[in-house]
């Protein structure tokens, strides 16, 4: 069994690395892994309070103020996962110097494993979101069974990005400093906080080529509109991600022989 040059042993190592990533993140704090759950809940609670009870923003056609919060979190929850994955993933090779320099293993597993740390944020956000929907009297339909498909595509896309970034970060560390700013720009250039209709025309146009937008829209199609996500959106992101991922993997494998002398 061999997929893209990975075998069964690599899969187990991938799972081990993911587990280590999550544990190391909260190592030494007494609440430990609980923080992985507490942190996003805290963040989302603040948003709920501000936009649900202080600023009482209403989106057109909705009855309650919580609708905006639900709409927001259905886009922002997955974005939290995106930020986490990209940040952890980009620094994954640089941060594992000891392993990279001294062990014989497929280093490309590091960014891939790091990408999946975002899953915790995503799951916590989704649970929070569904609790909010039930609380506000909204409906949940069978469409949520389509969520795993969207989640899968989102993470292939994220893995494709991190595999590139993690390799580039070895050569240009500055990218790790720059990344939070870039992510902030992408967040506001992507219709996550504001509805698509409110965006300037130029951003609207760019958004069609923006995978983050298609991912956010797919989540919203399922959760807010109780609908199937746009097939073309899904296909676009999937094809783009796979291409970028396979190309990234190739570049990563070509460059990784030089990590040793740069770390």
């Amino acid at each position, binding site marked *: 069994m061999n997929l893209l040059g990975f075998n069964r042993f690599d899969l187990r190592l991938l799972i*081990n690395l993911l587990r280590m990533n999550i544990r190391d993140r909260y190592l030494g704090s007494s609440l430990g892994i609980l923080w992985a759950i507490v942190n996003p809940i805290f963040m989302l609670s603040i948003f709920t309070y501000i936009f649900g009870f202080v600023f009482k923003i209403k989106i057109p056609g909705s009855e309650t103020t919580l609708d905006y919060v639900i709409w927001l979190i259905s886009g922002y929850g997955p974005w939290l996962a995106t930020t986490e994955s990209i940040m952890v993933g980009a620094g994954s090779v640089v941060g594992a110097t000891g*392993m990279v320099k*001294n062990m014989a*293993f497929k280093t490309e597993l590091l960014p891939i494993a790091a990408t999946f740390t975002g899953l915790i944020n995503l799951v916590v956000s989704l649970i929070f979101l569904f609790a909010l929907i039930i609380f506000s009297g909204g409906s949940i339909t069978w469409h949520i069974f389509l969520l795993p498909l969207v989640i899968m595509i989102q993470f292939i896309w994220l893995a494709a990005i991190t595999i590139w970034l993690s390799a580039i970060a070895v050569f240009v560390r500055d990218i790790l400093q720059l990344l939070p700013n870039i992510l902030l720009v992408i967040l506001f250039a992507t219709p996550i906080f504001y509805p698509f209709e409110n965006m300037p025309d130029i951003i609207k146009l760019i958004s069609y080529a923006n995978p983050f937008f298609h991912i956010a829209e797919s989540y919203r199609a399922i959760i807010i509109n109780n609908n199937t996500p746009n097939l073309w959106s899904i296909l676009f992101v999937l094809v783009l991600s796979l291409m970028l991922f396979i190309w990234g993997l190739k570049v990563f494998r*070509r460059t990784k022989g*030089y*990590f040793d002398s740069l770390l």
Partner: protein
Amino acid sequence: MSYYVELNAVSKIFSVGSSVIEDFTNAMKHHDTKEKYSKEKVAVNQVTLKLHEGECLGIIGRNGAGKSTLLRMITGITKPTSGKIHVNGKVTSILTLGIGLREELSGRENIYVDGEINGKSRAEVDKVIDEVIAFAELDKFIDYPLRTYSTGMKARLAFSMITYIDPEILIIDETLSVGDALFSAKATARILEICKRGKIVILVSHGMSAINDICNRCIYLKDGSVIMDGRPEAVTKAYIDEVKSEDEAALMVRFGSHVGNQTLVPGYMIEKPVMLTGETLLKAIRIESAQKFLIRIVAKFPYETNDLMCCVRIIRLDELILFQRDFNVVDYFSSSGEHCLELEFPILHLRPAVYRLDVELRERSVVNKLIYARSSSIFEVYSLSRPAGGQPMLYYPVSIKVNLI
């Protein structure tokens, strides 16, 4: 499947001080189209090597000879700049101990972490964990966080964690003997055992005895090239001999820089001493050991300096003073001008080697010993009857008597 490791004209060139952009673009390119770096250091140069199943290779060489780079390339951590490496079998490498140690976790948990890093499942680690803990001899500490450990304890734990590996192709990089003498011996024995389990073993070490014990083949790496390949006993011997002579040559340069006569205060002067040897006292610069030896020193000084000292020293290559004799010049001379001074050794006990003779004229006061003049010269001691095997420091005459009890 037969295991093998094959290196075909493998070279590794590191760029020195090139820009990151240059590094990155070079890394992205294919092998054959690669540009040359502006400044470079050749770490490994055209190494061709083939290892078959059952071979245990020792790699020796001085620091910076390219040993570690070669290992890293075989492991796959670093790519060769040119040449091809084929490895058939799963490579397990131990280049550094305790890569994954987490200070906050207990010793026991760290063993699981190590298993995770090495791609083992929890169940697999469970099978060997008792053995690992027993080997580490950490007793109750095994459940304490690592930050409470001493350095030695950490090293012991780190070493113990490698003991359960099941290698096909095993690559080990030196300094694996850790902890106190007792543990170190145990560790060496365990390494031997692990090496026996490996189908192919490559070992880098500075310990020649380890290489001789474990390996059945040895290469000597110098400036990135293999300059010798053969039985470990022969190669290690050649290596030791060469290192010794290189070291001595380097010492000689430093040693020789002192040679010459120097006058520091006008009026004082020491001429180059003359050395005489043998019963007939012939002039020579090569002196035979265990023979009569005489040093003749010609010195010039004004008589009025009554606290003048003469100091004669014989110094070994490593700056160790072997002989020193100080005496008051006034005790021996009663007028100023040129004097000849002779030091006679009835039998020269020094072993064959190169020595330096330093003569100084200086102030006798204890506080600031002003030096008036000095002279240094090099001489060599040889022996026609070397004892078999060893090289004793001194050729000291002893009388031997055998009594029947």
